[in-house]
């Protein structure tokens, strides 16, 4: 059997007396001094960590890893997530002890190499995006948006004038956009998409007034379309005194082709874990540097890196700074990787990346358009959306097709997003995939379409070849079991009440 079927937790593999890591035996302070600590401060309860040997622990985790799909093992056409190849030289760079063993508060003169990376990466981001300064602190795209909204608020507050209470977001936007704006008490106004999938200009105009704080926009948008009225949009929002925020989730197709800064955006976040090829790590760490135009630099979280006669240093924060948004300087490990990528990319690589990303997406769209309904007309940028509504008659949903694709050895595309498309399936191939891979995926999609016609149950009950099939999320949320402690407690309760444990969660499989 290729994949281990053992689903026991480390806790369930534990046996008293087993040890993995060995630690120094000698004590310098003398045995007695530990006894001088007041008993009231010492821990009284035991810590129920598992007891296992190192070989067993390693096998445990490596077998877990084999239950994952990943970019290194599978094609991962997850729309809006830009699952491109994560270059190994980036990993090599980030593992160097000369970086990983640096303390965030060590004297500046002792970390000049690190500072140079931060400085040059920022310079690169500025050039590529057309912005004037970046803070590297935000840890993710959503964290960047949060920082962006703080900047918007601080900027308007510094200028006085009318109270700006509204943040505009298109109805096709990522959920983080409205959530970020609402956290600061902004009234979120959804702007409709027109029949082509872009911002409806008439609807936008209706909402533009002196109360608009900001418009948040993803461009290309989540339908994979470039907002062709972008210059008009930014002009109109600026005219009423609002700012423009660029959600950099979809920056990948614009490298060397167009810059958010030139479009008129005031604030932008860039997902280094998307466009700059750093790994997603199963859900983080990412990095979401936030760039601004000149008029917003004083508000950036500090400290920023500056170049002085003595070398690089931390600049003291401006009095108008919103303050820090993170413990130290951001996810530096991710930045080292992005820096290595930037160096590999160079000036020549930018456009090659975007062109291949756009070409791959359009090719797939073209090959699939006769079998599936494409949500938009005309060419797309780096991703496109299919609407699988026509399969509702057979009771098949977009999510089912995603699950069936797993059986074919492909990760599912993004399903049920954007919300404006019924039964949406959002596909982003990225630039690093070979045409053969795209062709295999296209064939799989066509085969599944055929299955829906002949044997819809096969699709509805997929996947059939993976370690588990359709975990029951209703049970998980109704009677949450969120730790081994919960399992032990629930099991004891059931035993106490003499209840039969039909719930497999409470059975130990040893």
């Amino acid at each position, binding site marked *: 059997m290729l994949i281990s079927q053992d689903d026991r937790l480390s806790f369930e593999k534990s046996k008293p007396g087993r040890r993995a890591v060995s630690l120094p035996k000698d004590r310098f302070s003398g045995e007695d001094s530990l006894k001088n600590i007041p008993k009231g401060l010492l821990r009284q309860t035991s810590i129920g960590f598992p007891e296992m040997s190192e070989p067993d622990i390693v096998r445990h985790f490596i077998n877990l890893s084999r239950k994952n799909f990943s970019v290194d093992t599978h094609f991962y056409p997850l729309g809006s997530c830009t699952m491109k190849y994560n270059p190994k030289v980036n990993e090599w760079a980030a593992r160097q002890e000369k970086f990983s063993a640096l303390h965030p508060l060590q004297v500046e003169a002792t970390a000049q190499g690190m500072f140079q990376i931060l400085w040059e990466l920022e310079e690169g981001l500025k050039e590529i995006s057309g912005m004037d300064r970046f803070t590297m602190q935000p840890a993710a795209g959503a964290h960047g948006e949060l920082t962006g909204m703080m900047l918007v608020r601080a900027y308007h507050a510094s200028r006085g004038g009318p109270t700006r209470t509204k943040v505009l977001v298109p109805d096709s936007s990522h959920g983080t956009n409205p959530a970020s704006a609402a956290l600061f008490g902004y009234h979120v106004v959804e702007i409709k998409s027109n029949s082509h999938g872009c911002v409806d200009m008439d609807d936008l105009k209706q909402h533009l007034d002196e109360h608009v704080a900001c418009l948040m926009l993803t461009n290309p948008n989540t339908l994979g379309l470039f907002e062709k009225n972008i210059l008009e949009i930014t002009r109109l929002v600026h005219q009423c005194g609002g700012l423009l925020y660029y959600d950099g989730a979809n920056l990948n197709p614009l490298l060397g082709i167009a810059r958010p800064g030139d479009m008129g955006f005031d604030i932008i976040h860039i997902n280094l874990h998307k466009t700059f090829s750093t790994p997603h790590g199963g859900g983080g760490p990412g990095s979401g540097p936030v760039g601004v135009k000149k008029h917003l630099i004083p508000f950036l979280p500090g400290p920023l890196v500056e170049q002085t006669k003595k070398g690089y240093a931390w600049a003291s924060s401006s009095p108008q700074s919103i303050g820090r948004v993170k413990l130290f300087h951001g996810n530096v490990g991710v930045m080292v990787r992005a820096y290595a990528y930037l160096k590999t990319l160079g000036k020549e690589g930018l456009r090659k990346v975007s062109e291949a990303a756009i070409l791959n997406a359009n090719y797939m769209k073209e090959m699939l358009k006769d079998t599936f309904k494409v949500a938009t007309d005309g060419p797309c940028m780096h991703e496109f959306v299919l609407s699988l509504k026509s399969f509702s008659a057979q009771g098949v949903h977009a999510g089912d097709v995603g699950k069936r694709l797993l059986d074919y050895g492909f990760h599912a595309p993004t399903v049920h997003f954007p919300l404006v498309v019924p039964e949406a399936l959002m596909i982003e191939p990225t630039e690093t995939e070979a045409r053969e891979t795209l062709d295999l995926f296209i064939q799989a999609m066509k085969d599944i379409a055929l299955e829906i016609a002949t044997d819809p149950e096969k699709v509805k009950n997929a996947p059939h070849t993976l370690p588990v099939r359709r975990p029951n999320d209703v049970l*998980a949320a109704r009677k949450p079991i969120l730790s081994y402690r919960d399992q032990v407690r629930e099991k004891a309760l059931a035993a106490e009440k003499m209840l039969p444990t039909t719930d497999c969660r409470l059975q130990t499989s040893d």
Partner: protein
Amino acid sequence: MNFPENLRYTKTHEWIAVQGTKVKVGVTEYAQKEISDVVFVELPKAGQAVQQAKMAAVVESVKAAFDIYAPVSGTITDANKALEANPGLINHSPYADGWIFELELSNPSELNSLMTAAQYHEAVQQAPKH
């Protein structure tokens, strides 16, 4: 779909059973279908004052969390504790065992703004299908 004649309704899909100055509130059969399997209900506390059309409870499924609005203003007198252990009651018995809270009316004239079963039925028919 079943919309009992003896109840009043809101356009946000709550039902109201009037018993003197007290009203019982739940969600309609249409709403429970839209919500799908309810996994958790955040109940209001007895004694809490609520305002018409303002949030009074939250009903969660795995897909979404729905705000439940007070159909009329008043003071909460009781909440259905059975939903804590068995939130699925809202799906199985939306009009009886799946009631959510009870309140003491503060402004009886607000009852006039509510819909009859027939009016609600019509409103639901016009709602966009997902």
